[in-house]
């Protein structure tokens, strides 16, 4: 099997662009994990809702404005859903043991998954990219989709935005403090329950952003949440629980091994990232970067 360097480069870029979506979703998951210490299983389902909502909003408007509106509205919708779930049910459980919280997020994922089926049906849906990002450009003679280039640009922007939020804003600093020592934050007179709610909603908002961004690149279907959440878990583990940069590194490892897997051995492409994860975990059982725990 011989591949030209242009092909290899293109596949690398495809891998990176897919990593960026994974990164946005995983950063949200990791953020919730860091502050609330709960692997939110419903995260994948929220991502799926983001994608389905993008489909509906794009259909409502003619032309490419729909997609840009969806990119703003769909994540907000997802955030609203998560806020309702958090304030109505989840916040009453914070005193309980971890396993209960985990199973609760699973229950939410089951319920939301079926609600998606009720609202949008079980058919495959697809969203077309806005006119500005349609078509492809040429890199060293092989074509590369413009939309993927857009993803590669937007990933670092989101990373910078998250970094600014957690390091430069007051609420971000409080949430980081709550991740390290929640009792102490409570003692300082801060309402920890609301810190948790805000962190949870921000994490879920990122899931919605990921869902909206992924919509034009895949066929939107029920069950896309199940595969994604496992990938996101793996990425968060190899990156280091709760570490945003770890999520970035993990996503890149995952996305790039997958895209090269597609190139070299398509049938087992999904196995390659898992093998990479196992190797990383054998060398560093607690992840590549430092966990916030």
């Amino acid at each position: 099997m011989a591949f030209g360097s242009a092909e290899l480069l293109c596949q690398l870029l495809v891998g990176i662009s897919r990593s960026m979506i994974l990164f946005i979703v995983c950063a949200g998951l990791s953020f919730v994990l860091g502050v609330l210490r709960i692997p939110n299983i419903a995260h994948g389902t929220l991502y799926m809702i983001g994608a389905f909502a993008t489909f509906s909003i794009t259909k409502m408007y003619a032309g490419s404005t729909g997609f840009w509106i969806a990119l703003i509205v769909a994540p907000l919708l997802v955030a609203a859903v998560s806020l309702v779930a958090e304030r109505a049910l989840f916040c009453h459980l914070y005193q309980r043991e971890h396993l209960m919280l985990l199973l609760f997020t699973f229950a939410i994922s089951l319920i939301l998954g079926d609600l998606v089926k009720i609202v949008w049906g079980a058919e495959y849906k697809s969203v077309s990219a806005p006119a500005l990002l349609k078509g492809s450009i040429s890199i060293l003679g092989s074509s590369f989709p413009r939309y993927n280039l857009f993803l590669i640009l937007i990933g670092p922007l989101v990373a910078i935005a998250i970094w600014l939020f957690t390091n430069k804003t007051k609420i971000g600093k409080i949430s980081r403090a709550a991740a390290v020592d929640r009792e102490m934050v409570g003692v300082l007179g801060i309402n920890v329950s609301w810190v948790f709610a805000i962190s949870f909603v921000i994490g879920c908002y990122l899931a919605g952003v990921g869902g909206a961004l992924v919509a034009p690149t895949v066929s939107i279907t029920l069950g896309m949440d199940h595969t994604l959440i496992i990938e996101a878990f793996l990425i968060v583990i190899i990156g280091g629980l709760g570490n945003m940069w770890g999520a970035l590194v993990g996503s890149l490892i995952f996305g790039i091994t997958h895209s090269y897997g597609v190139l070299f051995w398509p049938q087992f492409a999904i196995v390659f990232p898992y093998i990479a994860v196992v190797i990383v975990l054998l060398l560093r059982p607690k992840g590549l970067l430092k966990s916030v725990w």
Partner: protein
Amino acid sequence: MFKNIVRSKWFGPTTGIFVLLFILPIFAPRFYVYVLALIYVTSLLAMSLNMVVGHGGMFQFHHAVFYGVGAYAVALMLTKTSLPMWIGFVVGPVVAAMTGLIIGWFCVRLTRLYFGMLQISLGSLIWAIVFRWYGFTGGDDGIHGIPMPSLISSLNRSYYFILIISLICVILMYMILKSPFGSTLQAIRDNPQRCEAVGVNIRRYQLGGIVAATFFAGVAGVLFVVLERSVFADLLFWVLSLEIFIMCLLGGWFTFAGPALGAAIIVALRTFVGKYTEYWTLILGVILILVIFFLPEGVMGFFQELFKPGMEEVTERGK
């Protein structure tokens, strides 16, 4: 050991129930026989999970993998080789236990959430391989129409086979949990630091618990093949793992028979409610939320609380 079992006040009613279960296929319709057999298989699976989760305190998040591996091992043995069929039935649980040993070896080095998430990732690797390897495992089509020995070819015969084997496994599990090994496992759950301080090799015990539990999960996988004669990749999917978790929670973590009760409730509900609605997972989610809020000790745990005086001997969890 046996004397204790016979002397237990549960012995009489339990024996009665099993006698009833043995004569049931004579007059019950085929469909009910099938559902009951499915309940036995699922109960065995849930109880095997509870060995490590409820009694061992480990976050065994991907138990379904071992169930699926057991089922696939026997299915592949029966369809791809010409070895005597009974060898396949032995190979299933053994392969499952070996998988448990390998995955467990990595997992026991970590604790709690890390343990659980690492197990999900390793289990998903196996799922991905099974899901994609069309030439060997049939990929997402699975394997159907697996031939069975004539001894257990009819539904009633396989019902008895499943009932007897699960009964034996349940007794074995009970004996394991009542043995010094099982007590140590529960002591590790309650206070790992102290156990380590008195010189217990925590990891080795936990690994032992995982291997035992995965062996019984493999048995459940084999029994599933006996009942259904087909295997598919969903058997190894993490959603099933969490469903088994729900069964344990619903029945009661800290009881021995609770998970079986939880499995019976879930399987029965899925069979009978699933006929009227396609939104079964919605109902499952609502049940789960109700259990988390109102029955955190499970149905069995709830009744134990209710009839607490005089029932200390069955309450395994020292409060």
